[in-house]
């Protein structure tokens, strides 16, 4: 990006401060733990993607001919479990959150570094139990709770001098709201899983009608966690998008406080809408009405964010670098995902489209179109800080475009399939649904290329990419006021915050301010 790149790699940084397997496996440095998570979840992303590939191949033809029904059912279960619990939920919080929250608030590390490492071990231990799904998710839940707890305490108690709540970057607000859900919601999941285990082992009737249990109760408890979990996946992504929009317009985020509080509003209201998954389950019609109403209420803060991002572009200085393309993609896909959520929240429409491909398309627009686009945008944006190297811009723009096109080709036809009546979780389907399924599978193959490309060129750039400056974009956050990659203790001098978030006085002040202050620490 800078034609006369004079950046030099720092002599001492978190990657080279010591070497060897042990220095990684026993690290308490939040930045190294972030990279450990990056390895784990990237692995699981491709495993989940492999299952998705098999699913899409099976659905090329109406007959269930590639794999058996039994296998197909396992494929979509494993695809969902791995992508949600082992990729999406930890993706932004555990990788970008871990790397950035201490940097953003101006701290040396998270509040509980050893707990942080413990979370990673729990996460990996749970991976080994994927076969025994219940145990795996139970343990992954603890990892999620501990990570959330760590962020809440870090944001509350470790902010640098001058870093008031309303000077926090919106990414930190997003992670804070997410952590609230993780800490308050995940225990309900754990309780539910314990009840399932008690029923299976001790035959205590809870959910299974053969023991006198109630299967609808399971749905209530499952969704009481699983609906807020959607916000665990998408709120951090919204936080990333706020950072990207600010940096690539050089504007303060329009309506900063509204964007910040909308995250908290989503986290709170998100707990009160679980019943909208159960409009046809026979729950009371009046309960359904309340859940429908609250579902519309939770849509408002999301809309407010989209409007504020758009308004931030107004009279900004907009650049089209790769992270901004992902942010643009996020807004587009999330808008479609959100609007189709209004369809599903409408009681009379939901009767027809629930449990069809309409729902599958809707939540992929939110969780892949939204959460994954934000994650990829964030990875590109902070890659210079994480690795100290720049990624190849041309390849990155190309792959962002491929992801966007491939995604829409994969999932848009599923909206049509859903309204036509194709139920989800179908291994075989009537012939008239084939054309759209073929389109979806074709799109998935394009999407796959878009996901593999970044992995290839990011790894390539770790060795061959141009060396990154401290603040290559430049951007305003504290994480850019230290070297790329940062030293183990993050900052040579504890930063002092004197400005509003995203305030952009001049290029040189933003780009070199941190460096100057470090050299003359008397600021």
């Amino acid at each position, binding site marked *: 990006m800078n034609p006369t790149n004079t950046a030099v790699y720092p002599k001492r940084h978190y990657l080279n401060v010591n070497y060897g397997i042990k220095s990684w496996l026993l690290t308490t440095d939040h930045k190294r733990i972030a990279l450990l998570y990056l390895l784990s979840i990237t692995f699981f992303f491709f495993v989940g993607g492999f299952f998705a590939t098999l699913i899409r191949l099976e659905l090329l033809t109406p007959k269930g001919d590639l794999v058996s029904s039994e296998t197909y059912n396992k494929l979509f279960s494993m695809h969902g479990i791995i992508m949600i619990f082992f990729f999406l939920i930890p993706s932004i919080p555990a990788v970008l959150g871990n790397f950035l929250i201490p940097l953003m608030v101006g701290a040396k590390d998270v509040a509980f570094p050893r707990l942080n490492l413990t979370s990673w071990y729990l996460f990996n231990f749970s991976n080994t139990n994927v076969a025994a799904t219940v145990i795996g998710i139970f343990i992954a839940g603890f990892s999620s709770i501990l990570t959330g707890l760590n962020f809440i305490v870090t944001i509350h108690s470790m902010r640098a001098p001058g870093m008031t709540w309303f000077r926090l970057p919106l990414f930190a607000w997003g992670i804070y709201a997410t952590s609230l859900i993780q800490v308050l919601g995940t225990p309900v999941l754990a309780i539910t899983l314990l009840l399932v285990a008690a029923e299976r082992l001790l035959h205590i009737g809870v959910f299974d009608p053969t023991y006198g249990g*109630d299967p609808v109760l399971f749905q209530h408890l499952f969704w009481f966690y699983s609906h807020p979990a959607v916000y665990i996946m998408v709120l951090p992504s919204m936080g990333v998008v706020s950072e990207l929009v600010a940096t690539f317009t050089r504007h303060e985020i329009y309506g900063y406080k509204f964007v910040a509080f909308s995250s908290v509003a989503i986290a709170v209201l998100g707990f009160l809408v679980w019943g909208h998954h159960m409009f046809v389950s*026979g*729950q009371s019609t009046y309960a359904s009405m309340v859940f429908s109403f609250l579902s*519309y209420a939770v849509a408002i803060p999301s809309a407010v964010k989209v409007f504020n991002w758009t308004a931030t572009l107004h009279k900004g200085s907009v650049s089209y670098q790769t992270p901004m393309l992902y942010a643009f993609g996020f807004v587009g896909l999330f808008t479609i995902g959100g*609007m189709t959520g209004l369809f599903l929240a409408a009681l*009379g429409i939901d*009767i027809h489209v629930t449990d069809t491909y309409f729902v599958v398309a809707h939540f992929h627009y939110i969780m892949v179109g939204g959460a994954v686009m934000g994650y990829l945008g964030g990875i590109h944006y902070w890659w210079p800080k994480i690795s100290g190297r720049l990624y190849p811009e041309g390849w990155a723009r190309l792959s962002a475009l491929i992801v966007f096109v491939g995604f829409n080709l994969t999932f848009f036809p599923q909206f049509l399939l859903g309204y036509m009546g194709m139920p989800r979780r179908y291994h075989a389907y009537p012939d008239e649904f084939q054309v759209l399924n073929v389109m979806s599978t074709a799109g998935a193959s394009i999407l796959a290329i878009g996901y593999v490309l970044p992995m290839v060129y990011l790894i390539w750039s770790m060795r061959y990419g141009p060396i990154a400056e401290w603040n290559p974009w430049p951007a305003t956050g504290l994480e850019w006021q230290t070297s790329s990659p940062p030293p183990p203790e993050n900052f040579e001098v504890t930063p002092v915050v004197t400005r509003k978030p995203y305030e*952009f006085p001049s290029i040189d002040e933003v780009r070199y301010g941190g460096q100057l202050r470090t050299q003359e620490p008397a600021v």
Partner: protein
Amino acid sequence: MKRSAFPFMPEEASSVSGHVDALFIFLVVLTIIIAVGIFGMEIYYFIKYRRRAVDEVPTTIRTSLRLEVAWTLIPFVITMIIFVWGARLYFEIYHSPTEAMDIYVTAKQWMWRFQHPGGQREINELHVPLDRKVKLIMASEDVIHSFFVPAFRIKYDVVPGQGRYTLGWFQAVKPGRYHLFCAEYCGTNHSLMGGWIVVLNRTDFQAWLSGGGSEGSLSSKGEKLFQQLACNTCHRSDAQGRGPVLQGLYGSSVVLDNGETVLADESYIHESILNPQAKVVAGFQRPSIMPTFRGLIDEEQLLQLVAYIKSIGSGQGAVEVTTSGTAP
């Protein structure tokens, strides 16, 4: 599958299909307007305010509170319109009619079984008359299934467990063959648990009814069962039995020993047969002396008993049910 006037819409074959589609089309148009509006604005800004110099720094824009309030309130009003429209539609779809033809449905892994009041039985295919309201009384023998007919825009989860019948209804308005799907994942052959709803005009339906070799009406089968199981020794019609009189029961209000009053509908009868202790009629001893029939009879036989008890009901007409839902 035949298509409706709009592409990607299943045929509008029930009395509510058109109403569902109307709201759907409204939402599609709204989505297009908003999506085009937002994308359009963004692309316009992307071009108009593209960075022209590397060191360009734009002026700061102050947040307008008025604008924030406007784009909070206006979407809220729009969503409330959708909410009210959707809720009215929901009540229309889930408000069971009072006068309807009963069809008894048993779902199990992985088939749908239907019994007509006249005793005709069908598997994975249901023949119904045109323009007549059909009430579905549904039970599951194992796990949750869901009765989904896209052309009718209806879906009802059929939940297993005591005291539950799922009640639903539809009125077909176009003759034809329409897909029936199970929409709730129910195990290995979930995707094969489908079938057809065949809508016939009135004369064809009568011909179909008389063609099927019926083994007696559903309620007469229920009556036989009632005697075989010796229900009639306690539930006597002359009020001298040890159990409550069942003549005139269906559709009436029953006062329980805890003072509550419940409506004697299909689910109440179902629950009382499987779990007699759950609701004991006032004036009878608790624990009830009636044994449970759980495991002795299956859901199909239960439906026959219910049909019989309904046939000796009060004659007040069918019970009005406002939910697809469950007995308390």
